[in-house]
């Protein structure tokens, strides 16, 4: 969830996360210092995977995240996930495998779910990005967030932000009539969202706690509300 000091609707130019004065940034700066004391590489370098050679010229990019505009100057190697986490302090999107296999980094790009670890931030100048922090309306949870709470769709919670962002994207796809590999007849305009369909469509999100039955239940409830007319 967003820190109350964050100003998501103002244009800010950030070069280092510590420049954003928030409780989270302060904590992160403290943990980076701790890492240095123990002889490890700083968090920023680790997070960005910048391990070799001289840093290439920074590239200017403006990211539209959760309705706010952020002008950044980035090493082109910076993934979208690292830009969100390390430069904008939006740590809701998680780094699991960092190779597009686990889905913990899932965000919405122009309304479509993607793995933010497998794309470069500089490729998304001007595109609308929604992270888990941008789903709720103030104190009112997004219907799918509420459904995850209602159905206990998590245990440790590490995959949850990715599951929910992916679920929002999945419900959009289902509403648009998109088929899946298990759809019996591809020519049907509006395939029914059965349990088997939900499981196939969510296979890009791994849950090591295996909360899958409850995740499916949460998605079914949200899909039902969507069918009943409420926007998801």
């Amino acid at each position, binding site marked *: 969830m967003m820190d109350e000091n964050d100003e998501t609707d103002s244009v800010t130019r950030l070069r280092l996360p510590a420049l954003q004065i928030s409780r989270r940034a302060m904590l992160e700066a403290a943990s980076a210092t701790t890492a240095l004391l123990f002889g490890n590489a700083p968090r920023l370098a680790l997070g960005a995977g910048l391990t*070799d050679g001289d840093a290439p010229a920074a590239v200017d990019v403006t990211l539209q995240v959760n309705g706010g505009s952020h002008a950044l100057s980035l090493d*082109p190697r910076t993934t979208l996930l690292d830009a969100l986490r390390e430069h904008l302090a939006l740590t809701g999107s998680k780094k699991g495998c960092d190779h597009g296999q686990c889905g913990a980094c899932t965000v919405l790009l122009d309304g479509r779910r993607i793995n933010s670890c497998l*794309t*470069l931030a*500089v490729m998304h100048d001007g595109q609308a990005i929604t992270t888990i922090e941008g789903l709720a309306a103030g104190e009112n949870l997004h219907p799918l967030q509420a459904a995850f709470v209602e159905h206990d769709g998590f245990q440790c919670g590490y995959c949850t932000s990715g599951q929910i962002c992916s679920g929002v994207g999945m419900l959009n796809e289902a509403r648009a009539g998109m088929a899946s590999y298990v759809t019996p007849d591809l020519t049907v305009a509006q395939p029914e969202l059965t349990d088997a369909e939900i499981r196939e469509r969510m296979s890009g999100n791994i849950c090591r706690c295996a909360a899958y039955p409850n995740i499916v239940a949460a998605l079914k409830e949200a899909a039902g509300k969507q069918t009943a007319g409420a926007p998801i």
Partner: protein
Amino acid sequence: MKAFTYQRADTAAQAAAGAARSGAKIIAGGTNLLDLMKLQVETPTQLIDINRLPFDRIEDMPDGGLRIGATVRNSDLAADPRVRQHYGVLSRALLAGASAQLRNKATTGGNLLQRTRCSYFYDVTKPCNKRDPGSGCSALGGFNRMHAILGASDQCIATHPSDMAVAMRVLDARVETVDAAGKARVIPIADFHRLPEKTPHIETALKAGEIITAVTLPPPPQGVQVYRKIRDRASYAFALVSVAAVVEVSGGRIRAARLAFGGLAHKPWRVAVAEEKLAGATVGGAAFDAAASAVLHSARGYGSNDFKIPLARRSLHAVLGEATRA
């Protein structure tokens, strides 16, 4: 990741000229390239982003076929009503590949150009003739459960990982390209991917600086279209064996059949003799067996992947059974 410079291409010619430079790579979806760059299997010094080029459309062709732009996303291609209605094998193959998140990024051109998932290719501490020509093949005597049983060489037994390309092979797609001089070329998909032979690092017919602009499909074929994928998990895994089939049946006889296989070779695999054995044959196990034998007579396993030979045979039986069911 190794350092690189980033440039956005405004025209196809500019992209091709950039791609002709040593160390340059085109990036579109990036789902495979960035994965490999993080592991330093790929170490481009320059990335040329083609996402703003007008290659993101699916257009009707005058002959009744389709022209699919190189940057059309896998998810958009799978969802296109024309593809769902008339090229079901392609839609199903696309939906069998990767995850929904990856399909929202991965492109038509990039899918054709994706690299093998051989674990030794991915491990930069191990010899691999594809990654480091002349260093040897670790898979030959190693863990080769995912590897090729057809068309391999003593230099490389990697498989091509794409599902989409297998469906495009059965549909006789054609790959359209342009080079830095602006010269366009059309490559039949049968000739697009290469066998490993002595040069497994050269995977396609593309020349330096030649980029894919589109893939075209001929008019929809007659008959039933099936894509079946066998893998270690129910979803989101690469194929051990996959079969794409287009089969036309009339009065208990097969009029015509086309078959392409994934997971078996360095390229989507198609055997004309197997299709000839099915043409005119009575529907049933004898014909299916004859076709399977024609596909697999030269197959060989390398230990961990021996199971793929009977698995391919049974998969073909199942697909032909499904496609010819009245």
